[in-house]
């Protein structure tokens, strides 16, 4: 392609660039504003200040002294990591079983499980609350994670991606005398690394962001998560915007870091089950 030709193409793309710059600005600005507001006093924010200020430490100190910030952060990390680890194990094991040992009966079971995708969370909320409360698990990590460990989405994702798992490895491992469960741990796990990464990112994000269910079963302040904490700050009679945005920043930081480091895996995780 000649240089002239390519500059002609670029010139024709100018409206596209303008459109994309506008959309990108709208996408990024609220997040920029949130970070800037976390460094300003509430009065300055109300006056429309959108540049960075010098009150970040003050806002942080207020946030941490008026609320159990570290407790909520710790809870969120603890619940999200436990849920991610257990969910990945349970669902990948199922995906492995459904795909590599598939027969008519198992395919039937799988298609029944898929029906669970249609069940709205709010519909099972009340019976689940009763079950968790009868089992005396309210305000424990189990209340948080139990309903979200096994999801049709994750099982489907592992099942679809298992299609690429080389059957030769399976046969070779069997000839070597490896038991079926050892095949899972020693062969399947390492080969499926990228699927685990994508599934892990999406599960962690979902767990971290969960709000409705934790609100139902984690009512105790000591058990609360970051989204619950910032919602509570915002629900107060008067809102200190600087402190609130500092809280929102702390609630968003972990998922944003995950997003920037593992964006590819996150995108794969979202679209994971569709192949």
């Amino acid at each position, binding site marked *: 392609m000649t240089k002239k030709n390519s500059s002609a193409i670029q010139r024709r793309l100018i409206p596209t660039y303008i459109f994309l710059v506008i959309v990108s600005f709208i996408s990024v600005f609220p997040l920029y504003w949130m970070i800037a507001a976390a460094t300003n006093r509430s009065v300055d924010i109300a006056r429309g200040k959108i540049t960075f200020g010098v009150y970040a430490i003050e806002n942080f100190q207020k946030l941490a002294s008026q609320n159990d910030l570290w407790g909520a952060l710790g809870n969120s990390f603890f619940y999200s990591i436990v849920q991610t680890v257990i969910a990945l194990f349970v669902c990948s094991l199922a995906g492995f079983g459904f795909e590599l040992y598939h027969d008519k009966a198992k395919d039937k079971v799988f298609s029944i499980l898929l029906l669970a995708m249609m069940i709205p969370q709010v*519909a099972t909320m009340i019976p689940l609350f009763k079950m968790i409360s009868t089992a005396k698990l309210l305000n424990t990590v189990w209340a948080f994670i139990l309903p979200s460990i096994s999801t*049709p989405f994750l099982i489907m994702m592992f099942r679809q991606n298992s299609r690429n798992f080389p059957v030769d490895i399976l046969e070779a491992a069997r000839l070597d005398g490896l038991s079926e469960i050892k095949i899972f741990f020693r062969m399947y796990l390492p080969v499926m690394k990228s699927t685990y990464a994508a599934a892990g990112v999406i599960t962690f994000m979902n767990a971290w962001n969960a709000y409705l269910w934790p*609100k139902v079963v984690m009512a105790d302040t000591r058990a609360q998560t970051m989204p619950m904490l910032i919602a509570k700050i915002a629900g107060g009679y008067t809102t200190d915007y600087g402190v609130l945005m500092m809280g929102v920043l702390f609630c968003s930081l972990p998922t944003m870091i995950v997003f920037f480091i593992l964006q590819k895996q996150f995108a794969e995780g979202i*679209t994971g089950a569709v192949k």
Partner: protein
Amino acid sequence: MSKSKKGMNIQAKQQRAGWFFLAPASIMIAVFSFYPMIQAFLTSFTTGTGVNVKKADPLFYNYTRMLADKTFQRSVGNTFLYLAIEVPIMLVLAILLAQLLNNKDLKFRGLFRTMVFLPCATSLVSYALIFKSLFALDGLINEIFVNLGILENNYNFLGNTGSARAIIIIALIWRWTGYNMVFYLAGLQNIEYSVYEAAKIDGANGWKTFWKITVPLLMPTIVMTVIMSINGTLQLFDESMNLTMGGPAFSTITMSHYIYNNAFGLGVGKFGYASAMSFFIFVLVAILSAISMKVGDNRD
């Protein structure tokens, strides 16, 4: 004979191992999804709270009450309003963005994609609170509008029905467009570039190429995003709860929010009534998903 029997045993053993692998996940879905769904259905035929729960009389009491409940009607209306306006705008915008970002001649593609995708990294509560603060009476948007002379005085965006609903819709579009775009980008990458080259040689313009090639080839992806969006919108909760608190006067409340209020929100838990309403959402999700799938299937 004995050898083949032994072979069968090994195979049967392997198949049994498969059942063990899928059992934990399957049992958990049965216990934490199917069983509660059935329980919710049974609970929807009861009235009373705590230890005084009894069978509803007449049996469909909660359902008839639901249909006559003005606030519930409002919540259904709101949810469908969000669905009807937000989902089409968002999906068209997402396809458009994916199409633009799929252009090989475009520079900074990765950067643009990251920025459009970025809102997905914020939790639902976080972005609801950011929008709430931006549109607050003393918020940035009011400040800008007043300074530009568009507004004379600060306007209570979240305190007026029309604007409060519009803000929920704007916020939803902001949060989910990039998310849906990722699906379309993945779908577009599966379309061979040569298909477009051939169309160009045949003299098809960009618009025609988009409708005749891109949209039909993306149809399965479009159907899926439509189903996901319907499912998600019917279950909206975080935004209604944190952005507007359902107000002013329940004018922006969603179905899930109203159910939550009845079950866990205000005083005594009306589990029977809340269950009836939640079963209604379940039926809606099932019907609308089935319709979308049917429409998508008729493409050829």
